[in-house]
């Protein structure tokens, strides 16, 4: 319940299919997405059809504080089908924390979330998305991002609690001088996980980075496919790193770079390995137990930013 409780101070709280809290602030329109679909012709074009549930956040003026949303499952066998939309107007810098979780361990829930993000010219969004599910839950989360000229996205997704099935898909289209950074960190145990990230560097001088950190343990399988396509003279880099903690687990990682522009520079690096024994021994020589040493290394490996 902790993340739900902490979200009570946030902007949007949905439990199962019920919206418990919806708090707009100055310069921000926050609506349930079905309502936004009916109310604003301008946002209608971003949905294929009228959404069933979800939120729309339209940031029209500069905001001082980060926004936050929390979508939780608390009843058995709930199937959420969320369609979210985030629009950041030109020149605005915004930050969004998004938490999705199950409040009990075995609810057999399904969480399907599709989020479309429109970053207008020279706008910027820092998005931190945290998932915490139960071992019987299935989750599919998709994000589709359009970055107009000069827009910037930093997107961090983290899921370290084991669930039954996880699929994370992120797609971004970058205009000229736009910059996007996808970071995905997952720790899978007894779980099937699939990660698909695609960036299209459509405009010149666009810059895209995909960074994956995957840990597979106890009969888990992680399959990742990351792709950067350069139509314009942009720069792109894919960085995939995996750690395998047990012999009965799998990681398959396929980075792909594709260009049809001679001015583009695309690079990738991928590695899968085990935790270095040398690092463990080093930390144990400082008095940490083997488990404490491994936890510190794993937390560092998955971390969005440096551990403080």
């Amino acid at each position: 319940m902790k993340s739900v409780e902490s979200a009570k101070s946030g902007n949007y709280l949905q439990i199962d299919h019920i919206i418990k809290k919806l708090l707009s602030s100055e310069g921000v329109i926050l609506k349930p997405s079905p309502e936004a679909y009916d109310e604003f012709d301008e946002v209608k074009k971003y949905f294929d059809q009228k959404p069933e549930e979800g939120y729309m956040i339209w940031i029209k003026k500069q905001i001082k504080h980060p926004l936050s949303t929390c979508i939780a499952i608390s009843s058995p066998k709930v199937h959420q089908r969320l369609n979210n939309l985030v629009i950041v107007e030109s020149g605005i810098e915004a930050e969004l924390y998004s938490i999705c979780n199950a409040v009990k361990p075995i609810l057999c829930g399904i969480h399907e979330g599709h989020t479309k993000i429109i970053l207008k010219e020279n706008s910027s969004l820092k998005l931190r998305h945290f998932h915490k599910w139960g071992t019987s839950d299935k989750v599919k989360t998709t994000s589709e991002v359009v970055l107009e000229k000069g827009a910037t996205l930093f997107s961090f997704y983290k899921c370290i609690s084991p669930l039954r099935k996880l699929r994370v898909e992120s797609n971004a289209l970058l205009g000229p001088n736009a910059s996007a950074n996808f970071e995905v960190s997952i720790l899978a145990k007894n779980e099937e996980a699939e990660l698909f990230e695609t960036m299209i560097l459509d405009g010149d001088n666009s810059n895209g980075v995909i960074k994956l950190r995957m840990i597979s343990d106890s009969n888990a399988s992680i399959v990742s496919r990351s792709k950067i396509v350069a139509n314009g003279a942009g720069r792109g880099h894919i960085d995939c790193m995996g750690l395998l903690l047990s012999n009965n687990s799998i990681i398959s990682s396929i980075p792909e770079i594709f260009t049809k522009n001679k001015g583009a520079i695309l690079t990738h690096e991928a590695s899968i390995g085990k935790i270095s024994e040398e690092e463990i021994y080093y930390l144990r020589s400082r008095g940490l137990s083997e488990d404490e040493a491994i936890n510190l290394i794993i937390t560092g490996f998955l971390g969005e930013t440096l551990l403080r």
Partner: protein
Amino acid sequence: MLDVRNLIVKVNGKTILKNINLKIKEGEIHALLGPNASGKSTLAYTIMGLPRYEIISGEIWFRDINITHLPIEERAKLGIALAFQNPPVIKNVKLSLLLKRISRDKAMFDIKGLPLSHDFMEREVNVGFSGGEKKISEIIQILCLKPAFVILDEIDSGLDIINLNRLMKIIQEKLIDNGVSVLAITHRGDILQFLDPDAAHVMLNGEIICSSKDWRKPWETILRCGYEKCGECKERELLTD
């Protein structure tokens, strides 16, 4: 304090240490001299308990406890600490966090008076550290452990004279003046004049071939003739206690 008895150690099936005997009393400083690849670091890692170093026979006692088969962290908790010659990088973990996790009294180590910048503490452990920064990082970590016995493995290597002076001042004030015993491993001997050890030992091909309570005697011979002549030296002596 430390009593290494008839120690034979293999690494990857090859015998590296051959019948090592070494006694260090409370508060004593000993130097272990020897050329590269003579087995000095192997002895350090074996005392610390790294599993790659396979003890074939012999025992290691620390403060009357047989630690020959104790896990690394248990040895650390008893008060043994090692300043690594080539410490590994711990990515994405800040030095300040590591110090917080390992500090004995769970309070952040007081770094006042140490030549450390805030930026340095906020860097990832050993990532992009210069030779000198690695040594300083090792010593700060060791100070956080409040050890009783410290092995300094080539702590003088890769340091310019200014940084060596700084580091030795910290070692003197924070460790030696507080009664901590030290085994200083070196092949160049730069730190001998700083430490003025109570005894010096010379290791060649995995054996301690000379031990003296006057470190100048073996060191002057080494300076004069080189390590390769140590085996032929008629003046070499072995301490019995």
